[in-house]
């Protein structure tokens, strides 16, 4: 299969540390993603998105003035977002659980733990390509379906005690 089939892929790296940005760029290049643009915080990331609409985003969590959570929320819900469905991989290090949950609730697609390893990055990219997730839109959330855990004994389709067929609307 020719590499040209995916060589147009464009990634955006939003990360405030120049060395981490450089590391991520090098890794993406090595994995076959040659078009990589960079931004040092969420605001710059949004500006960069409008210049070169990326196919996927890797973002840090802690940045100033606009962190990865606010950035993700903007990408997902802003009226003028260039691509609210873009896969977003959040690169997280020593972060407190509530912040990671907040990132998930902002619409992050995948998490990549620091220290970054090749295997983990490959796994996240493969997950995004191989198993894209439906999006959920409701009053308080827009983003990838957060219900990913498959329960062995779950016979579905309802997951909540108050689920009823009335709430269902599949577009």
């Amino acid at each position, binding site marked *: 299969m020719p590499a040209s089939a995916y060589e147009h892929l464009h990634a955006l790296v939003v990360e405030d540390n120049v060395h981490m940005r450089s590391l991520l760029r090098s890794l993406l290049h090595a994995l076959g993603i040659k078009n990589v643009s960079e931004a040092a915080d969420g605001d710059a990331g949004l500006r960069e998105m409008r210049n070169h609409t990326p196919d996927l985003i890797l973002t840090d969590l802690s940045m100033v003035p606009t962190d990865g959570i606010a950035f993700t929320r903007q990408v997902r819900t802003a009226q003028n977002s260039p691509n609210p*469905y873009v896969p977003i991989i959040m690169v997280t290090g020593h972060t407190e659980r509530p912040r990671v949950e907040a990132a998930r609730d902002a619409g992050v697609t995948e998490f990549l733990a620091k220290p970054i390893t090749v295997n983990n990055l490959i796994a996240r990219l493969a997950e995004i390509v191989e198993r894209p997730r439906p999006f959920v839109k409701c009053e308080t959330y827009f983003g990838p379906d957060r219900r990913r855990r498959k329960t062995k004994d779950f016979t579905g389709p309802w997951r909540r005690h108050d689920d009823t067929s009335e709430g269902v609307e*599949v577009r």
Partner: protein
Amino acid sequence: MTKEKAAPGATIIDVDQYPPLLDEEAAAAFLTELSLRDTSKRANNALETKRVQISHAVRGYIEVLEKAIRTNDIATIIEQAHEIRGLAANAGLEAVGRLADGLYKYVDTATRLEAPIDAEVISLHINAIARASTTASEAKAYGEAVATELNALVTHKLQAINRLKTKSA
């Protein structure tokens, strides 16, 4: 594939209802590329090349951190601790990363909540970071042990700040 049912009031937009990242052919080609041993080897080489550069950067941040404590420059301490915690592990300095994380959490939280900062906590962290950042294997073991102790100390200090703030609220 079983379709997920939407919660009441929610709409599910299925994967075929929004533009795919790659078309089928390109996705297959990309997945093949990702699975190749050569690809993985190339990426690991890239990581290894950057490791030296990152290690130098971390040592530079540590020097700035050591100067900052001498001048009691809290903003710089927070900034450098943040840089170190994010990078150290990719330089093979995991304990340094944990120590910097504890330092960041303590100083950042205390500053944001306008709580008094215990200079001894900062000093202990910075000394440990400096020592654990040397390449000796003994330093690595030391770093791991001290990081565990100091993380417990930070947890204790943050709980104290929390209690203080809850009382005064």
